[in-house]
């Protein structure tokens, strides 16, 4: 038996044992990430922002290809034609009234999208959670009658927006049901809960989720996916700068 | 001294053309005391204005001190007047804010004379016309006759070769008028200055040693008179 074969057997043994006895936090997070990444997608939905001034609903249509190419176009009246294009690590905004194209970078990425609790950088976040966070399994809990793992994520660097995240992950479907986002000192900032799930291509994903700002009472952002198609052919030209101003 | 050769002055007023002077020829020698007379509109004032280099003529030529005036520019005529001609006006034309002294001396200031000489000459001139002691008065503080005396002093102070006077006594009563004419004549005799004055007053004509009568812009008579 070569040393290489021995190594593989040991590894297999290790994983099978682990899966028998307990799943690791890293495996849970990897599975969640895998469930939310598609070769391509085309979706439409709405962002509903509630703050002390009232409620505002914006609708959008979105296309994505791979992990870091996406295009969002707003379709609601107030912001019709506004587009956000992400290609690689660059983010562009297009405003139809001014026929103006703006490239966002640096601190500008931290601005809120349409006054919601989502920022532009939320849209450019790395798809691999484990690249930025260390994960530990904290225990189990039941959310809406569903058995969940509680995974605590601690940011590896200061460039992650939330120093600490606590996620409740559905043990059957590997979808996040609830998240709590906090400062390094542990002060809770935001809470995300999934209100409705849907099945797409055999995997579960959030159809409607709400992020509440815990510091600003009564302020929340609800994101709803009305329709989604995945793994469909999309032309590369869709994600080009030229295409922004059609 | 003064020579007009076929001089015409034509005024154009819209369509109508008025010949204020019609080919007038006249020769005046130095030291004359000459009156230009005639009814109003006969061309008296036009003639004085021409000789005074205040106006231009349309035909002929005018010589003063043998110099042709016709070709002179405005500036040259101004300089010529400053140096050679004195004026006396019907309504005196004194500057009301200046004293008698200042009204006379300013003529010398124009000649850039030095201050001391201006003073001597002016004071002497004023006493010659009988205004000694009244130098500091303003025109409003003087009688009409005194004002015209100031005007005469002003005309004579720079010792011009010719003094032109347009109806010099018209604004004065006859007694004062005669005094003024006497003064002018005295000056004419004492200084040898040529006097040319216009009038339509028979009494004034009496004083003239030569009387030129104008009618419709033409010389109708030109007579020497005894004094």
């Amino acid at each position, binding site marked *: 038996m070569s040393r290489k074969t021995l190594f593989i057997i040991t590894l297999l043994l290790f994983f099978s044992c682990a899966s028998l006895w307990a799943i690791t936090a890293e495996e849970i997070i990897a599975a969640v990430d895998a469930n939310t990444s598609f070769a391509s997608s085309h979706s439409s939905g709405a962002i509903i922002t509630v703050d002390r001034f009232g409620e505002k609903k914006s609708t959008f249509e979105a296309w994505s290809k791979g992990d870091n190419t996406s295009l969002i176009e707003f379709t609601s009246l107030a912001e019709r034609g506004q587009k956000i294009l992400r290609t690689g690590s660059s983010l562009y905004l297009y405003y139809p009234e001014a026929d103006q194209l703006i490239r966002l970078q640096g601190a500008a990425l931290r601005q809120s999208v349409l006054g919601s609790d989502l920022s532009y950088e939320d849209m450019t976040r790395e798809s691999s959670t484990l690249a930025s966070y260390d994960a530990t399994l904290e225990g189990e809990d039941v959310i809406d009658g569903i058995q969940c793992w509680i995974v605590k994520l601690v940011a590896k660097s200061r460039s992650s*927006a939330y120093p600490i995240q606590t996620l409740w992950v559905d043990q059957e479907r590997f979808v996040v049901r609830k998240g709590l986002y906090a400062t*390094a000192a542990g002060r809770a900032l935001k809470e995300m809960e999934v209100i409705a799930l849907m099945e797409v291509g055999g995997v579960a994903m959030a159809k409607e989720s709400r992020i509440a700002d815990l510091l600003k009472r009564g302020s929340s952002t609800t994101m709803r996916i009305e329709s989604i198609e995945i793994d469909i052919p999309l032309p590369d030209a869709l994600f080009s700068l030229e295409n922004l101003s059609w | 001294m003064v020579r007009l050769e076929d001089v015409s002055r034509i005024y154009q007023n819209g369509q109508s053309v008025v010949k204020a002077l019609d080919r007038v020829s006249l020769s005046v020698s130095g030291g004359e005391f000459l009156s230009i007379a005639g009814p109003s509109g006969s061309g008296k004032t036009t003639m004085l204005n021409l000789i005074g280099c205040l106006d231009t003529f349309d035909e002929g030529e005018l010589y003063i001190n043998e110099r042709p005036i016709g070709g002179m520019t405005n500036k040259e005529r101004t300089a010529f007047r400053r140096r050679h001609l004195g004026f006396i006006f019907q309504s005196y034309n004194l500057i009301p804010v200046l004293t008698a002294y200042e009204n006379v001396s300013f003529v010398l200031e124009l000649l850039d004379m030095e201050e001391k000489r201006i003073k001597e000459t002016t004071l002497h001139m004023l006493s010659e016309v009988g205004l000694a002691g009244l130098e500091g008065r303003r025109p409003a503080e003087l009688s009409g006759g005194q004002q015209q005396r100031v005007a005469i002093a*002003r005309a004579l102070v720079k010792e011009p070769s010719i003094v032109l006077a347009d109806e010099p006594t018209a604004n004065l009563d006859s007694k004062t008028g005669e005094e003024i004419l006497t003064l002018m004549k005295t000056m004419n005799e004492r200084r040898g200055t040529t006097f040319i004055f216009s009038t339509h007053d028979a009494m004034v004509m009496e004083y003239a040693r030569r009387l030129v009568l104008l009618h419709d812009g033409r010389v109708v008579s030109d007579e020497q008179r005894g004094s």
Partner: protein
Amino acid sequence: MFLLRLAVKNLSRYTRRTIITAVAIAMGIAMYLAVDSMLLGAAEESERNLKWYETASLRVHTTAWWEDRLFLPLDEAIEEPQPILETIHALGYGAVSRTRFSAELILGWEEFGEDGYLPVEITAIGEDDGTVYRYGATLAEGRFFNAGEMDGIVLGSWLAEDIGATVGSSLIVSTRGKGGFFEAFDAQVVGLVNCPNPNVNRTLVMMDIQAADQYLGMKGAVTNIDILVPDREEVQSVQRTLSQALSSLDSSVIVLTWKDLAQDYLAIVSSKQGGSSLILFLIFIIAAVGISNTMLMAMYERGGEIAMMRAMGMEERRLWVSFLLEAALIGLLGSAIGMVLGALATLYMVEVGIDLSFMLRDLDMGFRIPSVMRGAWSLSSFIVAAVGGTVLSGMAAVIPVRRALKSPITTALVRL
């Protein structure tokens, strides 16, 4: 000399008309001087209050920070402020490091009666801040935070009033640290400052720089180093000196003057100066209309005299001088009265000032002045007004004089 005497004497004959024209010019000039004094006073005081409370004389930033200044980017902070501070101190100037960052003040209903939040800029200062800024004397209530005090903040009094905060109020500060992570911490208002700079009163939030360093993960980095240049030294030349001295130390930093930092204010000042030019222009109109009318009437009335003088052989040059002098003298008289009135107005502005508190509180005029707007003396404005009033008046006579000299002597004589 004769011409001057003539001009003076001629003026005396229309006493009333001369006085009315001169008074009109005087009012214009007095108004110009008063407004100019006010604007100058406001500018001087604003400049001082900018330097004392807002911008210092000079400031060091990284070039990248300056380009992105709208976002107050902590990521573009000065990583090693110490050598820069030492260099500046060695050159004999006071300098302190500060960190400015954007944040939200989260107000809870328990404390403030309703929930709310307010985007603010927080300035984190050190113990030595007083060597450049002058907040020490502006404390109206409470105290300043101590070095290292993690939760003490000081607010501008108007800001505190606007949000309903008093000394002792608790609130939460929410922000993003260097790198972009979210941070939130509890803070307590320990003091209120009432500063002569309304902009500061309206917006100021200050905290300790050591505390900010910890919360924001600065690790010793600061966003700016602020420098005090004594009044007797020229800011631009110190800027050049420091730029040179710092370039070998840290090529990523730039030295900016208070003018670079207070663009909004400079824009206001230049637009207000447009206002005082407008007044100057109005004076010109008054002078032109008044003087040319006065001179036109004088020329008409004195047509015979003018003709006489021309007949006597007075050159046009002398006539010009005589009448322009006459007009200029009206202007000079007006300017003299105007300067006396203007001086009185300026004296009042300097000693008493105009109380604008009723409008300054809510209206941002751009000037950094407290409620009372004070004037300042400006010799140059008085000179400009006097010379301008006189010269313009003289110029206004040009048209009437030209008209009078154009008419033939004989026609003017006939009118006698």
